[in-house]
């Protein structure tokens, strides 16, 4: 999928563990792990807002559009 989730990068920058973030934003650690690996069909604005608030970042810092090379 051409949408890349850079949550792990932001977590590393903020020196925060997935477990802590999951607890702070009120979602299951398993769901956060799925989000980190990009294995979800969507993200609620509410979840995105909480992550941005906790990590003090913008949605653009978490999500990135990377077009797939032509022919793939």
């Amino acid at each position, binding site marked *: 999928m051409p949408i890349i989730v850079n949550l792990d990068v932001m977590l590393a920058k903020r020196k925060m563990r997935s477990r802590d973030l999951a607890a702070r934003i009120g*979602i299951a650690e398993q*769901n*956060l792990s*799925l*989000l980190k690996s990009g294995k*979800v*069909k*969507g*993200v609620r604005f509410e*979840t995105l807002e909480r992550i941005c608030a906790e990590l003090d970042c913008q949605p653009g810092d978490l999500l990135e559009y990377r077009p797939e090379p032509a022919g793939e």
Partner: protein
Amino acid sequence: MTVNEPSRRIARISKMARALAAACALWIVGVTLWHWTHPDKVALNARLIWGEVFGGFSDSQLVAGFASNLLPAGAGLAALYCLWRLFGVFLSGRIFAAEPALWLRRTGFCLIGAAAAAVLDHTLEALILSLNLGAGHRLLSIGFPSLFFFGLLAGTIAIALGEVFIAAAEMAEDHAQIV
């Protein structure tokens, strides 16, 4: 209303529906057996339906009539079994999933089958019960009993709802993948 109230309500309704399905199955079996073991009732019923004077049935006529009646009764019992399984799935807490949709569709097909079997049974019964009458009095009757229209309508609705459930199950699956 608590969070678990809807699921408790569904469980309560499912238990009631399963009990009703079981009672209905017993009623179908009981009434069918009782009817065909009472030739006077068979004759009375036949007179009411076809308006002919029936009677003096042989054992083979009664057995054949019973066998013919097993067609819609069997399809009806199959529909009730599907309903039993459907509400069993609801009882286990799976509402918008593929399994209940499947059982709902099966219920619909069984009901439509029962409707078709009711028409066939109507024709066969008239023929079987009039076999002992003299030439010119035997009946070849094609009729559409009330069960036909009920079965057709209920079956079509069940199949349509099954399709809706399939769409709902897909939506629920999609929703589960949104964090």
